[in-house]
């Protein structure tokens, strides 16, 4: 896959590019978080990039709503536990 090159960026935008996932995941210290937050609030490109990555992570997280174990598996697990002496 051929990807576009990223044009030269000001240092503040470069910091957002390099740390957007750390920022969204809450992995940065308070000072850095506040610096990025302030820049993102005033830079349209960085705000849109942060929003894109945020939407991406939200979309991936929505996969958690997938169906869980089937009734058959639940019964099978309970059967095997009772075979071990489980009294529940």
């Amino acid at each position, binding site marked *: 896959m051929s990807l*576009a090159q990223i044009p030269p960026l000001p240092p503040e935008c470069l910091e957002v590019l390099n740390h957007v996932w750390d920022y969204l995941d809450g992995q940065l210290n308070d000072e850095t978080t506040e610096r990025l937050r302030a820049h993102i609030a005033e830079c349209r490109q960085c705000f849109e990039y942060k929003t894109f990555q945020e939407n991406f992570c939200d979309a991936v997280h929505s996969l958690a709503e997938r169906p869980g174990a089937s009734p058959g598996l639940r019964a099978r697990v309970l059967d095997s536990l009772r075979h071990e002496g489980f009294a529940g």
Partner: protein
Amino acid sequence: MTPPPADHPSSQSPDAAFEREALPWLDDVYRFALSLTRDASDADDVVQETFLRAYRSWHTYTPGSDCRRWLFTICRNVFLRSLERERPTVDLEDAERDVVGAGRVYVTMLQEGYGDLLSQVDVLPAIERAVHELPEPFRSAMILVDIEDQPYEAAAEILGVPIGTIRSRLFRGRRLVQERLLAHAQDAGLARRNPKENE
């Protein structure tokens, strides 16, 4: 996803405690096992073995601690043993390259008119497919952190790796999924909006 009650009376019998604290996580463990195995039948086997081992080791569980994390750890170990393979390793220095790589994917999406790709109705199945096609160990990291909402520290404990490795694997997984989303948009000829408007 509703967590089970946190209170854990010490007077409770072990079986009652197991039923109260461990069994409510069956759906979560199944989803995690399915993500690892990518096969419903294999996932059923892994889940059954996970709960058996958990029951046999229940005396080692600390009452009131994070039971889901404890079960995920067992599940991951059962899965690894079922494969009889060693954990792959990842170059820790690659994380920054992956972050910048994701930036290039984003710029390409904008230039090709796919800037609103994530708002399109059919993108979720593509994301799910991309996540499930990820090679290990990136898939496990994304599933634990991005889908199951585990913090980095918990994912590191479950997978038995340092936190920095979780970060590297997560970032690689996210970049690869975004690359596959772009490829999906290009292949499917999804509606493009104002190509190059954001250049």
